[in-house]
Every structure is written in structure tokens, then in C-alpha cells.
């Protein structure tokens, strides 16, 4: 059954929004920490991924979509991951003339 047409109370979007704002503030504060370039970037990307996850799952209603929508997201994610990993497995080992 398609549960997509159910209307929701505005409470859930507002809670998600509050979480997004809190994550934005924390990522700005965390960027001030002196933990080195790579760690700092990894923390920022981890927070950004959490925010993106919240938007995708709740605001874009993936929580109400059939399984196939989530499979598509998974395929897109792993394709991107493969492209990044393969690029860096090449680029990191190049001997630059």
C-alpha cells in the first residue's frame, strides 16, 4: 500500500529542522578545534552527511517511499563512493613529473 498520501502533523518537520540548525551550529563550532586538516574535514563531512540524511529521509519523504527509492539512493551512493575511491587510488600513487 502507498502510505505516501498520509498527511503529517507539522511537529516532525519542525523537530527535524531544529536538529538541522543544531548540527549547523555545532559544525561551525567544531571547525574551530585545532585537530589537524584531515580530522577537521572528516568531522565537517560527517556532520554534513548527517544533515543531508535528515533532509533526504524526512523532508524528501524517503521514510514514506517504497523500498525501490531507497535502493536507488544506495546505488547512487555506492557509485559515487567508487568514483571517489578509484580516483584517489590512482591520484595518490602517481609519480608527478
Amino acid at each position, binding site marked *: 500500500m502507498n502510505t505516501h498520501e498520509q498527511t503529517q502533523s507539522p511537529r516532525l518537520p519542525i523537530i527535524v529542522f531544529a536538529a*538541522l540548525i543544531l548540527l549547523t551550529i555545532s559544525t561551525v563550532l567544531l571547525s574551530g578545534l585545532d585537530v589537524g586538516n584531515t580530522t577537521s574535514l572528516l568531522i565537517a563531512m560527517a556532520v554534513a552527511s548527517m544533515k*543531508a540524511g535528515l533532509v533526504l529521509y524526512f*523532508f524528501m519523504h524517503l521514510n514514506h517511499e517504497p523500498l525501490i527509492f531507497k535502493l*536507488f539512493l544506495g546505488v547512487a551512493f555506492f557509485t*559515487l563512493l567508487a568514483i571517489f575511491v578509484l580516483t584517489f587510488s590512482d591520484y595518490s600513487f602517481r609519480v608527478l613529473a
Partner: protein
Amino acid sequence: MTDQVLAVEHHHDEVGTRLGFWLFLYTELFLFAAFFLVYAVYRSSHLEDFKLAAENLNTTIGAVNTIILLTSSLTMVLSLDALKKGSVKLAKLLLLATVALGVAFLIIKGFEWSAKFDHHIFLQTVKGIAAGHGSPLLTPGEEMLPVGQVLFFGLYFVMTGTHALHIIIGATWMLIVYFWISKGSINPENHGVLERCGLYWHLVDVIWIFLFPLYYLVA
């Protein structure tokens, strides 16, 4: 034969349409992924220049714009909810609020860009790409930015520029949807277009969620 064609024309598969729209969104995602990949490679080879260049960007402005876009995503979600519940007036109001927040984002971005123009960062970036080192295009007394910083600002203008273009497209689409809601062709029973417009807007938001730390939090 004619009956069959008519049957096909009248059949409307809302879930299938939405799935197709998600596929389109993934093509948008991969467009930006190519930019992110170039950013990642150049950042790894010009780490210090990227950090120095990023100091020219104002974290507060970036954070404010992030909050503006997140808020616009919330008003978009609430607008669709309102329309589904039959509160057409509220849905239209929230849709207009979403457009207004998108415009606010663009205005702030515009001020940010023009500050960069005033500091000749844009011009030096262009000259840097066109002419390389020791450029004859440089006027006497003008200094070339280091290559790594030229790459940083080149990517900054291309990525935020492409993103801003998506904001303009999204806001224009919303105004068209607003007009259709006013006309009644989009209504509580037939809200698929507003839903897809919302999906597009949220994707633009997701892309900004990743642009923000890569440009404003790496100094």
C-alpha cells in the same frame, strides 16, 4: 486501438513519476559530484593555498545562508503538508515564503561575490587560468594569486555559481507552481507538481549542505 491509446493517456502513475524525478535528481547530484571530485583532488595537492584562500570567505555569512536554505526547506515541507490537508491559502503563503528565502540567499551571495570582485579576486582568477605565471595580462603592480588559490577561487565561483543557478531555477518553478495553485490546476487532490518542486528544492539544499563546510569551514 484508439481506446487503448486513450487508456494510456489517462493513466497516471504518481509513484512512477516520482521515481523518475528521483532519477533526474541523481543526474544533478552527479553533476555536482564531478565538481566535488575536482575540489578533492586539488585540495589534496594544494592544501596550504586552499586554507589561505578560504580565509577570504566569511564563515558567518556562509552559516547564515545555510540557515536560510534550511528554513526554506522547512517552509517547503509545510507548504506541501498544508496543500495536502486542503489549506490552500496557507500552502500558497508558505510557498511564497520559500521563494523569499531563496531570494534572500541569492542577495547575500551577490554581496559576497561583489566583495570578491572589488578585491579583484575574480579578475585574478580569470587571468590566472587564461595566462598562467608571469602573465602579460597583469597590469603593472598587480600580483598573481598563487596557483592553488586561483584553483580554489575558480572552483568557488563555478560551484557556488552553478548552485545559485539551481536556486534561480527552483524559485522560478515555485512561482509557476504558485500561479497554478491560484488557478486551481494544482490542488489538494492533485499536488504532484508541488511535491516534485519540493524534492528539487531540497536537493539544492543538500548540495549547499556539502558546499558550506568545504568553502567556509576549512580556513
